[in-house]
């Protein structure tokens, strides 16, 4: 039996009928066409499928869509609000060369956001811990750690200017 769920994705409300065995990852990618959220291992290890549910980073591959009824979802497509101007995290990833193949990037950036909203001035160890659930096979992590540090600075400046 399908269940009718109401969710907010990147600020937009959706009512969708979903089979209970379908994951949030499947519904985002296949029903809503939001393919910025990737599917890597499908077992909660690699972090490529990371999205925010009510502001907390989760693995969308291990989340049932039916279980997020009523919740607020943010995917990588929602990070740059206008869709034109990039989020400071995205800018920093580009500037620091933190993206190679790009498959881990959406998960990495959402894990970075999950960290920076709670801890605006993380040290290197805190950054590394925050992305310990996101695997990158290209970069060796150094540029990603650098980028998250730079993003923290950018976000502080943005906040100071407002």
């Amino acid at each position, binding site marked *: *039996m399908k*269940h009718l769920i109401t969710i907010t994705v990147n600020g937009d409300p959706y009512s969708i009928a979903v*089979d*209970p*065995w*379908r*994951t949030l*990852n*499947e519904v985002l990618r296949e029903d809503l066409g939001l393919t910025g959220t990737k*599917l890597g291992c*499908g*077992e*909660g*290890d690699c*972090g490529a499928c*990371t999205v925010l549910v009510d502001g*907390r*980073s*989760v*693995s969308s*591959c*291990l*989340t*049932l869509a*039916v*279980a997020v009824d009523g919740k607020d979802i943010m995917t990588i497509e929602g990070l740059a609000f206008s869709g034109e101007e990039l989020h400071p995290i995205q800018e920093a990833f580009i500037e620091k060369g933190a993206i190679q193949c790009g498959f881990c990037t959406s998960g990495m950036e959402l*894990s970075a956001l*999950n960290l920076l909203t709670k801890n605006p001035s993380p040290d290197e160890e805190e950054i*590394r*811990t*925050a*992305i*310990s*659930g996101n695997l990158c096979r290209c970069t060796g992590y150094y540029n990603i750690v650098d980028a998250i540090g730079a993003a923290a600075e950018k976000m502080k400046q943005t906040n100071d200017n407002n």
Partner: protein
Amino acid sequence: MSLARFDYYAPESIEDACRLLMEQGGGAVVMAGGTDVLLKMHRGLLKANTVIDLQKIKGMNRISFEEGKGLTIGAMARLADVELHPIIKYRYPAVADAAKATANVQIRNMGTVAGNLCNAAPSADNAPVLIAMGAEVTLAGVKGQRQLPLDEFFKGPGLTAIGEGEIFTSIHVPIAPEGSGASYKHISPRGKVDISAVGVGVMLTMNGDICEEAKIALGAVAPIPMRAIKAEKIIKGRRISSDLLEKAGIEASHECKPITDVRATAEYRKKMVAVLTIRAIDEASSRASGK
């Protein structure tokens, strides 16, 4: 990932959840955070006709502390909530450490302490220190609820004392005695995100530098989290010294019964039990004396 078909229920009370579980019989599985249940279903290790999700039950995610009574962690309280809870960090730092040692950020945002215990992996990070601290679980069924020491909860890898139609509703940690301190130390090949190869939980009650009471529990070195009774006896009633720590570590290493698997060899685990037991006793005694 695609999962085999199942029906889904999110009951709003424990009574409804237990009734559903009885009605649905053996094909039903109870889900808290889902990080173990869905993974097992994905791998085909668990077949379920029905998933009963506990998230809509009011109060199930509650973490409460009462002076004189202790700490109660509801079955839906996320590992991240336990790791970051200010009272747990202050009054039960080793419980917070164990939650923090479990998996990665995303899994801790989803998974629960209760689920980690119910999954009953020998390596469950939250088990050793909770056993050492004398924690008790509450199981609810259609006929009412019962309490059980966590020490008697584990029956084998993946097996627990949860009976037919019963649901794990909370775990209770008593008030730590005056002069006590606890610690959880673990080791794994990659350090942060992978399953522990060895975990050691310790609680000591100190009177000056004499150890009056000691409980040591070892994870991932036997089919279930086990007490290191002989190692406890070595330090009980004695003055804590580096010689004594060494002896307790060696005894714990003799007591445990590890296997060789992908995460570590049995020999390495035995050596690490000694090292981590020493470190955990050391930290627990420092915490006991407020250092």
